[in-house]
């Protein structure tokens, strides 16, 4: 089963900025144990552009589609046998990144 694992940061209460070594070590483990599918940290939400081409022509607008205090800071995709395994890894991930984590299954 594949899970999208989102790292959630908070503008008012941001996680610490020195987490890279911890995250790298955690990634190594995810790879070694066969859970790792994909990982990526994201640029600031200011760098986002929303595109809407449902109408006559594409409309581009600056910024994230929803402005909020809490925002997506990075994602993983994991392959795990069930939610218990994913939640256990997510608990470690939250420590490694010093941020909240959302675990959501792919369909």
């Amino acid at each position: 089963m594949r899970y999208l694992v989102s790292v959630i940061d908070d503008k008012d209460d941001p996680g610490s900025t020195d987490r890279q070594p911890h995250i790298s070590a955690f990634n190594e483990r995810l790879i070694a144990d066969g859970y790792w599918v994909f990982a990526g940290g994201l640029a600031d939400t200011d760098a986002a552009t929303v595109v809407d081409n449902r109408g006559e022509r594409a409309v581009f607008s600056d910024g994230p589609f929803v402005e909020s205090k809490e925002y997506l800071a990075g994602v993983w995709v994991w392959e795990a046998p069930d939610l218990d395994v994913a939640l256990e890894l997510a608990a470690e991930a939250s420590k490694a990144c010093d941020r909240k984590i959302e675990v959501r299954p792919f369909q």
Partner: protein
Amino acid sequence: MSDVEEAITRVHHEEWARVVAALTRRFGDLDLAEEGAAEAFATAVERWPADGVPPNPGAWLTITATRKAIDRIRRENKRDDKHREALVAHDDDPPEPLGAIDDDRLRLIFTCCHPALAVEARLALTLRLVGGLTMPEIARAFLVAESAMGQRITRAKAKIKAARIPYRIPSAEDLPARVTGVLAVLFLVFNEGYLATGPDTDPVRHDLTAEAIRLTRLIRALLPDDGEVTGLLAQMLLTEARRAARVSASGELVALDEQDRGAWDATLIAEGHGLVRERLAAAAAGVAPGRYQVLAAINAVHTSARDIRDTDWSQVLALYDRLVRLDPSPIVALNRAIAVAELDGPEVALAAVDRLEDRLADYHAFHATRADLLRRLGRSGQSRTAYDRAIGLAGNTAETAYLTRRRDQLR
């Protein structure tokens, strides 16, 4: 009730969870398991009065439920569900040995009480899939519309499937935390039954307290060495034992100090005391008791006193001191203050209670306790204000009636 009806009710209590659990393991699908079990019991209601109760009702129900589930898979196969098709191919599996089926019920309980589900969903799923209560019964229990309760259960089952919440007994490492989660669900069911919320419901809901006790007994049978399971069962039994004395003929809550102790259920008390003694022996052997065991021990002290004046308050306070260390919640501190009042007087207790105001200002029992202490100190005006606050916040009809009388007796 006829003999057959009685047998069906008893078998429903005894076998429902087993049937749902066996089908869930077999088909890996809670929906299918629940529907199959419900259809099997409906068939029993139809057939048993004419055919008689089968010699092994549990096996009859499991086989019937499995057939119903397979019928359903076949019907729904038009929707091209290859996974279910594959399951039908294993039609001739031998029945599982009894031990494995017991483990299945435990799996079912852990799945229903999974921490990834909302608390309300855990309560509803446990009552439906483990307890076998119907949707209208559960909706009534929590005073929500049947459609809303149905949605809650459907959503929870969909999450279990979509997120792949496992159907498994947690690892030894996770087990204590997960058992704690299951006990919390059962305690919530019990407490809602013992002090039911809402203007249109009975003040004490025996159906809920009985169900919580029945399920806790089941968990104890499955996990006999878990001290907290035993502790919670004892706590429930010793509370349930006082049920008949707890509401007066006029529908008013009767406080512990005014209860007719002769109306307490001696059998339940004896059973509860036996369980507490079992845990005391374990504690003496060095196993530190958890919060339910300490709660049960406090309850045992109260139920050992033939008269309120015989209550060993210093023992109660010592146990509360222990409980505060295990559970630093302000509600425990509030209950501790009640014991303090008996030993050190209402003034000392009131000071302790007032320190909890920040955290308990919206809790009716905080104001009710303050009101009683202020009354005992002769501070009638303040007591009346506190009773008013308590009455405004209380959700239980019998408790409102009790508080109103106490307020109106103030001079």
